[in-house]
């Protein structure tokens, strides 16, 4: 059953666990048939664009968007890195993505000096990935299979319920739950939750040709 972008089937959407809020049952803005290997390259901190590397045996590719001065993505970064550490040996490839067009390589490097280094770091100032996957804020987690099927798009957990609405601790570790289920079941369910954070600032969309 084709017809939905990102290799998703309608069954994938319908099968998504009802316990997690499906904020929008609409197709992801990812083109049909793209695999991680065929997606546009991303920039490393050295300014060189390269495709996201995929090691043999990779079962899922996970990114979280970050900004150098977004307090929400900064606060959630250690939790993301802890999750990456826990799943490092399970074939999950974790990445950190700085999508804001106005953040320089030097600013990102400074940020990493301050907040430490974790997973592989990328920049997407052209907004190719964020637009393609409909990512709008930092922090926002995206998890896909190497063949491009959506596992999860949304918030890491529910510590923030809105800008300025912060729980004393997360009630649900939503992405961790989805990832664990994916790793045990082996097939993605395309779960989506609403991410809370700072708006991503991308370059204007290229004019249609």
């Amino acid at each position, binding site marked *: 059953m084709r017809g939905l972008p990102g290799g998703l089937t309608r069954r994938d959407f319908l099968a998504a666990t009802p316990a997690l809020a499906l904020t929008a049952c609409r197709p992801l803005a990812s083109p049909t048939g793209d695999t991680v290997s065929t997606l546009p390259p991303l920039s490393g901190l050295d300014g060189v664009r390269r495709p996201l590397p995929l090691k043999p045996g990779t079962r899922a590719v996970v990114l979280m968007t970050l900004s150098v*001065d*977004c*307090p929400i*993505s*900064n*606060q*959630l*970064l*250690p*939790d993301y890195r*802890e999750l990456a550490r826990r799943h490092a040996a399970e074939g999950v490839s974790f990445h950190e993505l700085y999508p804001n067009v*106005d953040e320089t390589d030097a600013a990102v490097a400074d940020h990493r000096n*301050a*907040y*430490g280094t974790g997973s592989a770091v990328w920049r997407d100032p052209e907004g190719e990935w964020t637009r393609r996957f409909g990512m709008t804020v930092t922090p926002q987690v995206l998890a896909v299979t190497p063949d491009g099927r959506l596992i999860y798009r949304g918030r890491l957990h529910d510590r923030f*319920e*809105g*800008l*300025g*609405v*912060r*729980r*004393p*601790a997360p*009630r*649900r570790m939503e992405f961790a739950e989805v990832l664990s289920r994916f790793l045990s079941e082996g097939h993605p369910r395309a779960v989506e939750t609403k991410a809370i954070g*700072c*708006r991503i*600032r991308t370059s204007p969309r290229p004019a249609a040709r």
Partner: protein
Amino acid sequence: MPRRLLQLLALLLTWRIAATTVLRSVADPVTFHDQVAPLIARHCVSCHRPGGAAPFPLVSAEDVRKRFGEIEEVVRAGRMPPWLPAAQEDRFQGERRLSAEEVQTLMKWREDGWQQGKTGAVPLPPVVPGGWTWGTPDLVVKMPLPYTVPATGRDVYRHFVLPTGLTREVRIAAWEFRAGSRTVHHAFLKFDRKGEARRHDATDSEVGFPGMDSPSGIQPPNGHFASWQPGAPPTRNPNGMAWLLPAGADLVLQAHLQPSGKPEPLQAEVALWFTEEPQSRAPLKLGLVNYGFVTPRGSTDVVATDRFVVAGDCDLLGLLPHAHYLARRIEATAELPDGSRRQLVRIPDWDFNWQGAYHYEKPVFLPKGTRVEMRVHFDNSASNPRNPFDPPRETRFGPNTTDEMAELWLQVLPRTDDSARLLGEAILRQTARDVVAYNRERLRMDPKDPVAYLNLGKAFLSRQQATNAARLLVRAVELAPDSDEAHYQLGLAYRILNALEPAKREFQDAVRLHPGNSRAWGNLGLVELESGDPASATDSLRKALEMDPYDALAHAALGSAFHQSGRATEAMPHLRKAVELAPDDTESRTLLKVLEQANPPSGKSSP
């Protein structure tokens, strides 16, 4: 020209001017320079400036434009600027609320295409204060060592000791807090002259000690809130209301810290400005609290209330509401003796993270007989986004953030001495009631809570019910045999019951457990004196005064011990100090007079 025609012309002219103004205001584009920057300067830049408490600056047009999505969301929701009380007739100092017109101005700036303003004009640099607000402080105290706020996890509630090194008592006219870290979300300034905070700090190797509740002995300045939150202006006490900081006292900072994602060093400092002006007006603090409420899981509007009848004419200067995460609304009203009602505060969307004290622009007069009522509304349903539990759990009063509280503290200034006395007595009664209710609630949660037994014992002692107090304090000592405070309080109860030997044993246990407990040394000295042992009493009382030179009772007792030992010359300075510290101590005054007559100073005897 006929008069009616003149009136018509005037009317037309007025209409034309008004219409032109309206048309111009709608048609003229909003610019950053003319409208947006002043608005941002007024409401945002106290935190959103380079090095400020907020995580990013809002000082240029570009700063504001690139954050506009977030700004729109938080200002429309009323979450920024962070100001909890709704607008009301009695305004608070430093209100940080955007009017509907100001929100509209911001939105129009976007609609008009983010215009900068006059060509060549420098974008308005909002005023950024540098240095300390009131010039060079008389004293700056700093945390001696930095504390590292963890990168992640739950918020941290911690006390930090800031030694002042003061060798004389001073009156504090103003103070300013400099967090030096964005992790500080709010803080209270307290002081401790008995070393309690240092003692707690020494229990582990980390800087400071944890807790949302301060241990006894660590108190805010009498009658003051001494509260700080990001963006709030520093505190200058009204004339005549400077508070006393005793010699040798430590400042204690009780801070609410939010992890930022990376380990953050915190080494806060406090600037103090002294005054020589004596305190001529003594404000009082009174609390409306409810310890008995229960919020069943799923309940959407449980209301905790409390009332206080004002016992003497006074002016309400400010208030400080307090609740945790389940509270949604907090209201306080005053019903005046003439039957009229006045809204004191209404917080329609309570947010624990932005709690603070509010001081009125003009004091609110509360005549004797006014009934003040507090109402705290709790929402313990899953739809409360701040509910820490999923699914919700039944919640009651408790000291942890996941428990709840319902409190409203008022700062009042009595109008007359008589009002002050009446209010003071009423506050004592209310406090005794609250201490009993609070600690009964603690015993309900934990029937073996030694602190609850200790506090109940102290409450009964304050009511002069020593037999009941002793019964509770014996239990406190059984449950916490290493608590010097429990032994000390039990000693007091025995002393009131005239059981001098058991009293002496308890005071001896207290000083053995904590050699720095000056009150226990003082009372041990008193019991030794009452037991006919002035020599031992002299040693004990000297120790008490080494630790607390302001203990009037210890001075009086030491004077008496020296007198009983036939050492009048040594007795007189202590009796003088006792009378100075406690002018109503007639016994010391009489003894001093007798000794001075019998031992005239050598200089006086020869004219």
